[in-house]
């Protein structure tokens, strides 16, 4: 029985995270534990009734939790065609059932779905007792939940923050073309500065510099990190943006207002106007840039007026 193309989870060369995930998860982690079953004395009609009531398309046949076979919708239809729907299930059930073991990695479940094209696989424990059933739905739900957790974990690693007294150090990782994430550093930095009663003009300059540097990495680099450091005993905010390439061909040009190498779709997002670096330099007290094909490093300092920030408001 063929139902379209193969399942698009490539178990031969998947991403390392997915491979790790489908080996880490066991069949028992994704299976439905409350299995609707019928007994050998039950008729095919009884089995069909169980399917109807539970919205399922196959019912394992058991005797004292031993699996004897499985009755599927197809078997019910065959019995109907024969006019023998009231016969006991063993006459129509499939006896050579493909089963999974509860401690198998989930990857087996996925490859079984592909290999055998059944809608469901009964799950047996080490003692050969029926302990669950796995459908493609169970696998999809379990995978989605796990992938969500993985993404959350990944996003957590893109942010590092330390605070010590009034001082703080905040670092975010940027990724190429990840526009949604860009701006998180400047938003959080501004919040931290606000809590510390920085003068509004300083807050704005720091926010503009961090935002432009974040955006520059998202638009032009392969990704990198932007770090903001404030040490209270030094009256300055330091910003350091380091990316992993491909470097700026001509730094003089890049510092020219309006010079841009951004393409049309980046411009359609409101960026790439060739103002990123000039804007950053405009709001900085010191501005250093160095670039090679291995990466670009921008260092910016913004001085805080010497009067106490609290009074400066």
């Amino acid at each position, binding site marked *: 029985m063929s139902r379209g193309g193969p399942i698009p989870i490539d178990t031969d060369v998947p991403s390392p995270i997915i491979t790790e995930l489908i080996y880490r998860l066991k069949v028992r982690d994704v299976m439905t534990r409350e299995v609707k079953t019928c007994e050998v004395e039950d008729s095919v009609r009884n089995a069909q009734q169980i399917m109807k009531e539970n919205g399922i398309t196959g019912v394992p046949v058991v005797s004292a939790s031993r699996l004897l076979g499985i009755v599927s919708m197809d078997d019910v239809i065959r019995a109907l065609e024969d006019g023998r729907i009231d016969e006991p299930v063993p006459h129509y059930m499939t006896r050579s059932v493909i089963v999974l073991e509860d401690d198998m990695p989930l990857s087996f479940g996925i490859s079984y779905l592909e290999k055998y094209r059944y809608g469901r696989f009964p799950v047996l424990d080490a003692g050969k007792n029926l302990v669950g059933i796995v459908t493609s739905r169970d696998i999809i739900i379990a995978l989605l939940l796990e992938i969500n957790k993985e993404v959350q974990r990944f996003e957590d690693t893109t942010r590092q923050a330390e605070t010590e007294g009034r001082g703080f150090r905040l670092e975010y990782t940027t990724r190429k073309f990840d*526009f*949604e994430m*860009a*701006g998180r550093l*400047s*938003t959080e930095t*501004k919040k931290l500065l606000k809590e510390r009663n920085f003068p*509004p003009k300083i807050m*704005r300059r720091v*926010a*503009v510099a961090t*935002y*432009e540097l974040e*955006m520059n990495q998202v638009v032009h680099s392969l990704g990198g990190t932007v770090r903001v450091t404030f040490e209270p005993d030094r009256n300055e905010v330091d910003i350091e943006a380091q990316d992993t390439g491909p470097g700026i061909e001509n730094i003089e040009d890049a510092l020219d207002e309006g010079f841009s190498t951004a393409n049309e779709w980046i411009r359609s*997002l*409101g*960026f790439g*106007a*060739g*103002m*990123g670096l000039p*804007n950053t330099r*405009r709001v900085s007290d010191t501005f250093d840039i160095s670039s090679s094909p291995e990466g670009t490093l921008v260092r910016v300092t913004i001085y805080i007026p010497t009067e106490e920030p609290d009074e400066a408001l």
Partner: protein
Amino acid sequence: MTLKECAHRVTAEWIVPGDEAVEFHDVVVSDLMSDVLVTEHDDFLLVTSLASEQVVRTADIVDARAILLANGKRPQPALKQLAASQGIPLLTSTLSTFDICRALAGCKDES
């Protein structure tokens, strides 16, 4: 001009509600967020036909009083959520950017 008066003049719909009595004394009109970041004003209304999350990030950095989307742009839920969490009022008007500018042109002299 207050946000209430502005909303009335451009028949805007409030997407993320805010204090209608908030006043702005200038208007910055741009679809290029880099240009918005260059402005020196801080009590202005940002008018743009760009409806991306970066509009909210930019408005927050430069302390815009509110964002008015032109040309009937409808924000994505993520944009709406970000504006709400940053406490930036968000409005949308079906008028073109030009007509919005015409309707708000007097705001500088009036204040």
